[in-house]
């Protein structure tokens, strides 16, 4: 992140950091919703990578990275909706969102 470094590297590092933070959240939080948030963060970090590579990549006019990010946003929205729906359903059933207690397959 020195001044002489490529701006791409800086963006990639921020993305990596965000990814790691998201992963840490997903791995350490007990609440299922916050685990989902961590996963969203990881997804967003990947999106940042896509956009950064598109911006500094060899063929920006092909819009590949941009498109990937846009589709990824759409898919993430679907994922969030279904994921949270599942969490709510599980909560209704088990009265908890604690992942440590959510380890049974049988209701």
């Amino acid at each position: 992140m020195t001044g002489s470094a490529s701006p791409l590297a800086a963006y990639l590092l921020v993305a990596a950091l965000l990814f790691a933070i998201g992963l840490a959240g997903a791995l350490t939080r007990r609440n299922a919703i916050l685990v989902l948030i961590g996963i969203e963060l990881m997804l967003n970090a990947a999106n940042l990578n896509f956009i950064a590579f598109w911006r500094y990549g060899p063929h920006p006019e092909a819009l590949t990275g941009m498109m990937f990010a846009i589709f990824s946003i759409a898919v993430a929205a679907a994922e969030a909706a279904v994921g949270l729906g599942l969490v709510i359903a599980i909560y209704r059933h088990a009265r908890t969102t604690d992942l440590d207690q959510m380890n049974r397959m049988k209701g």
Partner: protein
Amino acid sequence: MSVVFYALAALTVAGGLGAVLLKNTVHAALAVAVAFAGLALLFLSLDAQFAGFAQILVYVGAVAILVVFAILLTRASETPAGGVFSSSWLAGLAIAAGVFAVLGWAVLGSAQALPLSAVAPSATVHDIGVALVGRYVLPLEIVALLLTAATIGAVIVALHEKERTR
């Protein structure tokens, strides 16, 4: 790198850290909204206007709202007795740190090969629209299908079961 970038990066990372570390679940959700907004601004700084606005619309406008709704519906805003972190949080943290180390190592290791700058590409809405219904029309349709399926699925999953409403 400009001051703007550093500020935005700091904002984003701070939002992310807040999401992971804050004890209050709603605060964490709000923090993640900040991270999303920061990311949107980062997209804008990368000349990806459309993606940035889409990011705000989808993440701040919808996903964050969904998350807080889910939190309220599951009464997750009350801090649990056993702490907010999993019993084996240390292992998780170590692994996350390991991932960051590997990624950072990879980025820094190849930093010299990366381009120093590039002309700002133009990505007008028109270009994106043409690409979406041209080259990417199949993914577009599939995503449309996926979203429909996800909407229906989410509704069905979250619906009250009839006998439980009694």
